């Protein structure tokens, strides 16, 4: 096969080589796949060179990885990306404000089912991607849709229509300090009781705190979901909120107690932004958060605990064993004025080459080829891969209440977390949360 410009492997090519390469690809694609129609206008990575698109994202390992990859994207396609990332809540507010104002200044953003789909779909903000996939002149022949995990593809569809291409699946795992565990002769916890005992044994303020996890009202909801489910509770059951069942109250109480007694001071205001670096500095014995943070911890230059970190699936509860996962996809704004250039970006960022490189940076990919890539298999830590795979397998992606007004719901169900961490009356807070969630669900029209 001729050398051609591919993501992650860009070299300076002459125009003839590029056009020749593109035609060659198209020809091979026609012959090999046979599902493309007449390639009247052949796909060319550089067909939108000189254009500019704007991305709004969150502050996370994923965005760090993409930002580092931008020079490659520009080399491959000639498209410039204005890349903006903000804290979670602020990012969503900014995106929403610009979409409501219909300025058409946002082209692309990353999106996830539980948080965004209902609201954004209702507001008509997603551009449906199926027509782009079907258009041979717009889509790279080696997009290779079957390479995506089927669950991930399904998570990016609303009413059967594709609104995003999956780029990563987050999973909540347990990070722990192997050296501290060994020193005290502790095994990796597999139940909630064992985790509490380990936290107690290792809690040694102010040098090391036993357990860390998000405590900030809204950010904590996705991390708390595992505990809620493992204790046998759900946000809503039978179409009605179920925040004040004994199991739910037990889950809130446990999570609050763990943070209050074994967490760092001020944890009630912290999310992964503060806690992530704390673990990297060696101040936490255990930390429950997204698996992509591993890339910081294994880097000598960024963390003090490189080589001493273990990875495990979160412990099972008394009733269930369903850790939290969430698929993120790259979506296109329906108001974008540069839709074709944006489609290039979406394809590029979800391509096999980019996802494979992402695996090496701790970004869990959603393509089978990425997980099997030889370089990844060689360098990845075994327990990280194991923890990731078993979590993705058993995972439950209902990490927020299944309503339309998710941001408001997150605040409602996150409030009892704050109360629990501060040692207040959890049952009363859960009752109040349940009432408010019911009002919200009724307003959204999802209450049964």
């Amino acid at each position, binding site marked *: 096969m001729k050398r051609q410009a591919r993501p992650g492997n860009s070299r300076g090519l002459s125009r003839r080589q590029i056009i020749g390469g593109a035609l060659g690809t198209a020809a091979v694609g026609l012959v090999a796949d046979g599902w493309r129609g007449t390639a009247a206008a052949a796909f060319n990575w550089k067909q939108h060179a000189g254009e500019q698109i704007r991305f709004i994202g969150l502050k996370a390992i994923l965005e760090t990885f993409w930002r580092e990859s931008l020079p490659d994207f520009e080399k491959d396609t000639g498209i410039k990306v204005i890349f903006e990332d903000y804290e979670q809540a602020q990012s969503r507010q900014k995106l929403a404000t610009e979409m409501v104002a219909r300025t058409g200044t946002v082209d692309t953003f990353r999106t996830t089912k539980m948080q965004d789909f209902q609201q954004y779909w209702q507001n008509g903000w997603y551009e449906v991607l199926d027509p782009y996939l079907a258009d041979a002149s717009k889509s790279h022949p080696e997009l290779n849709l079957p390479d995506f995990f089927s669950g991930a593809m399904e998570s990016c569809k609303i009413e059967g229509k594709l609104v995003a291409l999956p780029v990563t699946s987050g999973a909540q795992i347990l990070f722990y300090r192997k050296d501290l565990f060994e020193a005290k002769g502790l095994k990796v916890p597999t139940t909630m009781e064992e985790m509490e005992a380990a936290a107690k044994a290792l809690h040694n303020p102010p040098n090391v705190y036993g357990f860390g996890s998000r405590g900030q*009202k809204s950010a904590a909801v996705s991390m708390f979901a595992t505990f809620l489910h493992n204790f046998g509770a759900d946000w809503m059951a039978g179409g009605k909120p179920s925040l004040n069942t004994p199991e739910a109250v037990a889950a809130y109480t446990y999570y609050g107690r763990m943070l209050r007694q074994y967490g760092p001071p001020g944890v*009630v*205001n912290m999310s992964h932004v503060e806690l992530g670096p704390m673990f990297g500095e060696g101040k936490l014995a255990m930390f429950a958060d997204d698996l992509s943070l591993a890339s910081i911890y294994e880097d000598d230059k960024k963390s003090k605990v490189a080589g001493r970190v273990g990875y495990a699936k979160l412990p099972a509860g008394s009733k269930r064993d369903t850790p939290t996962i969430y698929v993120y996809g790259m979506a296109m704004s329906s*108001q974008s004025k540069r839709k074709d250039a944006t489609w290039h970006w979406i394809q590029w960022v979800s391509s096999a080459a980019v996802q494979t490189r992402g695996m090496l940076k701790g970004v869990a990919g959603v393509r089978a080829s990425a997980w099997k890539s030889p370089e990844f298999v060689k360098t990845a830590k075994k327990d990280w891969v194991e923890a990731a795979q078993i979590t993705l397998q058993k995972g439950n992606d209902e990490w927020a209440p299944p309503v339309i007004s998710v941001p408001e719901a997150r605040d409602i169900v996150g409030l009892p977390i704050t109360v629990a961490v*501060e040692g207040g009356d959890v049952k009363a807070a859960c009752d109040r949360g349940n009432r408010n969630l019911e009002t919200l669900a009724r307003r959204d029209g999802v209450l049964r």
Partner: protein
Amino acid sequence: MHLRPGMDGATRGAGRDLSGRLHRAAPFVLPAPALITIALLCAFPAVYTLYMSFQTWTGSQTRSPEFVGFLNYLEAFRDDERFQMAIWRTVLYTAGSLALQVPLGVALAVFFNREFSGKGLVRTLYLLPFVATPAAIALVWVLIYNPATGVLNYLLELVHLPKGLWTYGADSALWALVIVDTWQHTPLVMLITLAGLAALPLDPYESAQIDGASPWQSFWHITLPMLRPTVAVAALFRAIDALKAFDVIFAMTQGGPGEATETLNIYIYLAAFQYFRFGYSSSLLMLFFALILGVCLLIIKGRRQAEAARG
């Protein structure tokens, strides 16, 4: 023709002379561009908010706003516990801020009203908090307030005083924010009061001295009563600002921990830009506006009564 004393050109050319007409129209024509701009910039958003308060809309581009009458207002009073708590917190925040800033500002103004070496420099330094940008203030104070690594707890520990959770604890967060607001805005009260002090007449003080009054008695019985209108103005400015406080609170706690620092302005912002409830947040804004107007009228009335009592 000559102008006789008592006569000006306009009388001569009354109604017939172009320049006379222009001269009379000038007070209306010249400010017109500015007035129209202000009217558009202020009136339009106000009217639009009032209009939106009777609708429900999620920012959708496929579904336009839907008229719901007074439903939003009803929901605010009947169902929305969070709204009612937010009003209470706003009132607490404003009362706490005023209670600290007004006495402190007046005291500082009296202190700086004397002559002493280095007065100019010290006064400038005291003004700096008011000049600093709110976002920078918020970020620095968040660091100062950090229970584990912040400098405040460190200093308290050095002098054997109890440490606190400040903005990281639900009980103390609102008061921690009041402290930041006081640090930031007391200089404004001081400035306004200094101006008032400069305008005070000297005669009453001379008579008091002749009558043998002590400095404290002069201050309490002469200065303060005469300063009351000035202090009322300062209190009015601070009250309006404190009721509407947003930037520092949002940057420091975003209304947290939990809802401990969620004042009305913060809640309305969340309702609009995080929950996409544009109609509902508009109705809350109208209620908020009524609250601010009410507090202003109270203060103005209080000042008028004080002035009337003084005679």
